[in-house]
């Protein structure tokens, strides 16, 4: 599949299945089932699984358009996480389970109780939970689940957790990379919506997009959206590189705050209504910034790497550690 073909297919699929009404209705595993069934039919689930293991053998860079499309439609289900998890499970030689797989951001053990913070955990059949320098695959049915009430993540608790182990799987890094890509997509949709509104809405006898003050804001939004896309691209091209993923989460996270603010500023009061779909995107960005480490967390890791590296200059570091 070529790049545009994947992008077109993903866009069509999301537009058809992941409608604003569908997104509003997604609350738990039960409500997720019909949407998930349609997504599973698409064939994207095994896009990253190696060809020898029955998948399409695509790279993260090649599947980036799918993540951008899920972000553009503010899909709350962990489609990209399931794709990444299935590939990792297959490559570890384990059997790929049915259903939705979420990736936990962190976990800690207390006696024989394992407590994990799981974005999109309320939809998950299975969860990949960090464990030492890898992850273990656990069934959601065996966990008790507690939501925070605002959709960022769930707290899931297993007693005597046991499941197949995936050595080397970096759950936090994988989650951050996916989140950055979907946020970049959400920002693209936010930009398109805001641009349309600026052209449609008239005040003082002309579209508000004719006013320089509004134009300058939309120009800034354009820049941030392009920058976020470039950052998501870098991470997709170096998916296991801490530096590239950190750079993406920082750039995208910082841009998200500003992009959402401009989108709402241009929309005015109508943007604050439940009825308008804009908040589905701003809420997607809010959750994205909070999941898998914020820009501050990743900036600190990246900064530590810069200061600890033997590279002579900042440019040398960025060139050799992020552009792979």
């Amino acid at each position, binding site marked *: 599949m070529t790049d545009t073909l994947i992008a077109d297919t993903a866009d069509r699929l999301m537009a058809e299945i992941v409608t604003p009404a569908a997104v509003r209705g997604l609350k738990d595993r039960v409500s997720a089932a019909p949407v998930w069934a349609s997504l599973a039919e698409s064939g994207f689930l095994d896009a990253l699984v190696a060809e020898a293991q029955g998948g399409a053998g695509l790279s993260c860079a090649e599947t980036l358009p799918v993540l951008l499309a899920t972000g553009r439609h503010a899909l709350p289900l962990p489609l990209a996480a399931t794709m990444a998890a299935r590939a990792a499970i297959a490559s570890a030689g384990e059997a790929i389970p049915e259903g939705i797989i979420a990736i936990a951001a962190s976990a800690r053990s207390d006696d024989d109780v394992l407590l994990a913070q799981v974005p999109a955990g309320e939809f998950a059949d299975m969860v990949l939970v960090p464990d030492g320098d890898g992850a273990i695959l656990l069934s959601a049915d065996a966990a008790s689940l507690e939501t925070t009430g605002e959709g960022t993540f769930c707290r899931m608790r297993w007693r005597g957790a046991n499941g197949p182990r995936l050595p080397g799987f970096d759950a936090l890094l994988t989650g951050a990379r996916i989140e950055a890509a979907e946020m970049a997509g959400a920002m693209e949709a936010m930009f*398109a919506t805001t641009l349309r509104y600026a052209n449609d809405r008239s005040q003082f006898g002309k579209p508000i997009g004719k006013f320089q003050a509004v134009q300058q804001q939309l120009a800034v939004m354009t820049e941030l959206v392009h920058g976020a896309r470039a950052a998501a691209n870098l991470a997709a091209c170096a998916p296991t590189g801490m530096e590239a993923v950190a750079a993406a989460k920082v750039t995208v996270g910082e841009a998200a705050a500003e992009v959402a603010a401009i989108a709402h500023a241009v929309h005015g009061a109508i943007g604050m209504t439940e009825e308008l779909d804009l908040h589905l995107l701003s809420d997607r960005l809010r959750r994205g910034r909070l999941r898998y480490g914020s820009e501050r967390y990743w900036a600190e890791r990246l900064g530590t790497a*810069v200061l600890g590296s033997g590279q002579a200059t900042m440019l040398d570091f960025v060139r050799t550690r992020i552009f792979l």
Partner: protein
Amino acid sequence: MTSFSPLPYATIPAGDEALRSEVKAFLAEALAAMPPEKRARSWMGSDPAFSRALGRRGWLGLSLPKRYGGAERGFFARFVIAEELLAAGAPVAAHWITDRQSGPLILRYGTEAQRQSYLPKISAGEMFFCIGMSEPNSGSDLASVRTRAEPLPGGGYRLNGRKIWTSNAAICDAMIALVRTSGTIEDRQRGLSQVIVDLKQPGISIRPIRDLSGDAHFAEVTFDDVVLPADALIGEEGAGWEQVNAELAFERSGPERILSSMVLVDTWLGYLKSLPARSRDDVVLVGRLAAHLASLRALSLSVTASLVAGDSPVVHAALVKDLGTTYEQMIPAAISAAIAADPEASPPDALMRTLAYTVSMAPSFSLRGGTREILRGMIARGIGLR
């Protein structure tokens, strides 16, 4: 989505990347004795002898064909060399604008005779051009230029008027000036042409203007009945506006719109590494600087690939410049706050001088080459708002 889509991701071809180590080795030696506050001048610091040394090594005119003395290596090779020169803070001002836009302009619009006359000298670092655009009453509103090249009956032109803020005019051999060759100021973009003016001829006076840091890199250039030969015209008479705009894609998207504060960054990093411990805020700032440099570099490379493909991505270039100069300006502000976060700290004098220079010059980053407000207006047009 709108018609203004992101450009595809691009990487530097291995053959061009291979130039880097050679350039690094040369710079390590050539700049060994130059203090950071001098290197912080980036592409504002000039040394014609240094530019000629680059020419001797074949590092100028990289995008020009071999038959005109160029290296025929293309824009990615130039990108690699530009990055290294800027990161090191090499004094590149003498040749910078010539190499970046005058050479490509003459190649694209010049006659065969003009190409043969100028391009080999450009590639050798033996001829430097400045760009005559702004005038005392024509800044962001470039189409309002009044400098006039009146066609003479027997061919050629008589040039009268004044250009200002012309970078490096005092050390340049020639100027490529945007002038009016027909019509009046009301005709705006129509009737403008580009002419090559030999700055050593009679009727020209060059008055250097001291900037707030004490340097005098820009100047005011006055033309008083200067007679230009017919072949001073570059490109088509009356097509000056379109030609100038094509030039802007070269001018606005390169590493110089990202790396202007990089000597300060590296000087600060050196200081941080020398400390026994670093604050969490400082580490976070270092990470942010790295993250944004990465995404800006990716955008700049995408525009470079588009130039290689023969396109003129003027709006994407405007986007890179605005985003890049915002980053360049954020750096001295953030490092100021970081350095003085501890009133008992005693940062090295060279770092303080480098910071002082960069803070004082930072406002110019979003003025030179098209102001932030003008660029955002261009982007607004690009996304269909105007």
